[in-house]
């Protein structure tokens, strides 16, 4: 097939870098509020009916939202196989923890209200809490570690090896900077969940959500600023040296990488990139203000923009790096040397261009059908509610 020559390899790589970012952002914008709602569940719902209201605001949609996560995994596999191979085996126990927490969710949603027993229900509520809070925290921890570099190296056969015993792989992840970014991620998604609840619920549940959302929103802003300062002063970055071959074969060992003073030098080279962190801060600030003022629709929108800005800021800060290696910088994975082949990237781009609009269209339709607040009466009168 010569068709794939239509778009040059380097352009395809940049497109797939952006698409990967968009998938993660789509995941955080949609499943993010499901996780935030899960994390808030035990606190904003005191009675069984209140909790059922909280659960049913996301009940019909969380499953579709979670596909952003699954698709994210699939897209990394298809478009960035080395990233898929190195990161998931490198973050092994952290990944296992995330999966275990996520496995709890479908079961908890489906089974919770199938029995009357209060202990049964309360156990599943805590499962939903774990299924929301734990992944939100660990995703942020992972970002913090990626920014610092991960201790792996590639052999000449491109087999990836890691430094340290198995527990070090997990305990080592939980360093102060990564814990901070984990907190930022958790606070961001909790705020997003609160914005969703104030939009979909009413009365005391919405009221409590706004209170929790305000606090987590402020935490998020403070943490984000702190992490930015830390990045500027305390953490070394990475840089490609020598001639950058953007069209070359995907072999990370062909490029030379050194440690640089700071990741934030990106912003002197590409000042426009500052739009991302500014949008992140603006979005979260407006979310907090909106929650305080009791605005509903616009607050949810601002919270989405905040997520867009925050996640983009990480990607733009690191570009072209995907996964820097602290053990052997030369092994670092970048946009130019860790993609699929030219043809695979092209085939996958065409498929995405066809199916993504269809997905967005029917997802929008489903949200429209389910438009409106979930009330206590909805939950108690319905046979189909969770």
């Amino acid at each position, binding site marked *: *097939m010569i068709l794939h020559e239509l778009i040059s390899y380097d352009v395809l790589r940049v497109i797939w870098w952006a698409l990967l970012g968009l998938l993660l952002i789509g995941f955080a914008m949609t499943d993010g509020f499901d996780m935030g709602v899960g994390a808030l569940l035990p606190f904003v719902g005191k009675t069984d009916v209140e909790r059922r209201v909280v659960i049913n605001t996301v*009940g*019909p949609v969380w*499953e*579709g939202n*979670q596909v952003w*996560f*699954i*698709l994210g*995994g*699939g*897209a990394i*596999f*298809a478009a960035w*196989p*080395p990233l*898929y*191979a*190195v*990161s*998931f*085996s490198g973050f*092994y126990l952290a*990944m*296992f923890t995330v999966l275990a927490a*996520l*496995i*709890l*969710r*479908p*079961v908890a949603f*489906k*089974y919770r209200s*199938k029995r009357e027993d209060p202990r049964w229900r309360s156990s599943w509520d805590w499962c939903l809490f774990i299924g929301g809070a734990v992944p939100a925290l660990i995703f942020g921890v992972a970002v913090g570690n990626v920014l610092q570099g991960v201790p792996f190296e590639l052999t000449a*056969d*491109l087999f*990836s090896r*890691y430094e340290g*015993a*198995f*527990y070090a792989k997990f305990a080592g992840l939980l360093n102060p900077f990564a814990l901070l970014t984990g907190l930022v991620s958790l606070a961001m998604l909790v705020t997003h969940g609160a914005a969703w609840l104030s939009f979909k619920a009413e009365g005391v549940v919405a009221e409590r959500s706004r209170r929790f959302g305000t606090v987590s929103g402020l935490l998020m802003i403070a943490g984000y600023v702190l992490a930015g300062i830390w990045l500027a002063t305390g953490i070394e970055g990475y840089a490609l040296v020598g001639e950058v071959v953007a069209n070359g*074969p995907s*072999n990370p060992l062909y490029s030379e990488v050194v440690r640089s003073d700071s990741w934030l030098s990106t912003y002197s080279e590409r000042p426009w990139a500052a739009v991302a962190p500014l949008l992140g801060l603006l979005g979260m600030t407006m979310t907090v203000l909106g929650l305080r003022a009791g605005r509903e629709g616009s607050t949810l929108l601002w919270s989405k923009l905040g997520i867009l800005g925050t996640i983009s800021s990480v990607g733009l800060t690191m570009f072209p790096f995907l996964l820097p290696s602290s053990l052997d910088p030369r092994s670092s994975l970048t946009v130019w040397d860790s993609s*699929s*082949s030219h*043809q*695979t990237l092209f*085939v*996958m781009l065409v*498929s*995405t261009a066809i*199916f*993504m609009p269809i*997905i967005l269209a*029917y997802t929008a339709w*489903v949200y429209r*059908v389910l438009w409106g607040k979930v009330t206590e009466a909805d939950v108690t009168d319905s*046979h*189909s*509610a969770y």
Partner: protein
Amino acid sequence: MDLDIVELSRLQFALTAMYHFLFVPLTLGLSVIVAIMETVYVMTDRPIWRQMTKFWGLLFGINFALGVATGITMEFQFGMNWSYFSHYVGDIFGAPLALEGLMAFFLEATFVGLFFFGWDKLSKIAHLVVAWLVAIGSNFSALWILIANGWMQNPVGAEFNPETMRMEMTSFFDVMFNSVAQAKFVHTVSAGYVTASVFVLGVSAWYLLKGRHEELARRSITVAASFGLASALSVVVLGDESGYATTHSQQMKLAAMEGMWETEPAPASFTLFGLPDQEARETKYAVHIPFAMGLIGTRSLTTEIPGINDLLDKSEGRIRSGIIAYDALMTIREQRQQSSPEVRATFEAHSADLGYAFLLKRYVEDPREASEAQIMQATEDTLPRVFPLFWAFRLMVALGFSFIIVMAYFFWRSSFRQQVYPRWALRLAVFIIPAPWIAAELGWFVAEYGRQPWTVDGVLPTALSVSHLSVMDLLLTLIGYVVFYTVLLIIEVALMLKYIRKGPFEDVEETRLWNIQHQQMLSGNQDLSHQTQALRE
């Protein structure tokens, strides 16, 4: 190579995949059966069919939740436990997984919520469309997974790139329309349909035995038996198609399944029973059916099917050829653009056997330094254990045929004997509920164990595919999965039984009213409408 890591990774994959496949077949089949029932409801407007849709839909939902939960693991497990596999073939293997998300998983997951929550929010037609979209989504999902798996069995449309040390896609079309994948897809979804049919049949039979919900149970049996009969036939026919495809792509797997040690003059006989002995390289006490194997495997009277001993000789030749490829690869990797055209030509000529040189990596770091004994050992490795394959395959086939008989019997009673079923038949239907799951797991066992020692047939050995992990990592997660999944399975089965015992929500009054109205429509009698009005009040 640390074999503990390899064995533990295999065990973990087998466990999580087989666990996942406890829920998948029922999802595949029940989604379609539920959509069929709802179609009848929308076409006839009979309330009983809506009650059936809701009841079987409820059981579908309980099962679906665990299918989703255990499926999450699968998407990430390749990267976690099979890092080198992911690197080596991700360029091809990742694409169908991503496409599954795009085309199938989004569809099924987005609409499954609306299926349960949308009864009061959607028109009848819209809800029916949603039900079918869930069914289509589930089945598409199987399509892409089987394309991915089919490629591991028959790696077409790809070639090795020395610069990136991995396989890269040369033709997406070939990967998608891989004959092995297509046969496997229809075989697998049909197996799912049989599973769901046996499930619906068995549960309905139990209701009839108990004298409960007879209206619903009889109709459900009719749907299950007709759908099940068609599917059971399809499983066997497409299973045969799969076997036919295997004759060309995986000769060793076929020979091992059949316990065929020597190449027989065509057409070969089929061994019905026997005890394969790996050490002695013979199948003891074998009962043969003349010509059958040749006919099934090649669909001709003159084509030979190679036996294990000849195939082992072939493997040895490929290992030696692979060593030449490996040697050329090392030169090319060192000199990159400067490597001579001769070396490149040598590599091209032998690159198809490169994977066979990798078999030696279990015994020696550099395959070029392998001793004769090591080459013989690697040759032996290309033969999987024959005994379990031989028997797993036969058991699966026997179960497959038994489903045809059961479904045909119930179809006959349902169509020509006024839906009257003898008690022994109903008891049998309850008794065989677990059988399709056993058959499905055996099928996967034959497909995956039979491919050993490869993860990708002839391309990448299993021993080389793993991640750089410690035994502790793997043990911890293995125990985690076992405990976690077992608890979830117990809860699932308990809930399933609870809702089966509780039975469907039958609105008797609604059904009665509908019947009266229906009578009135048929007879055109106006007086009855007053009666109906009175009844409503």
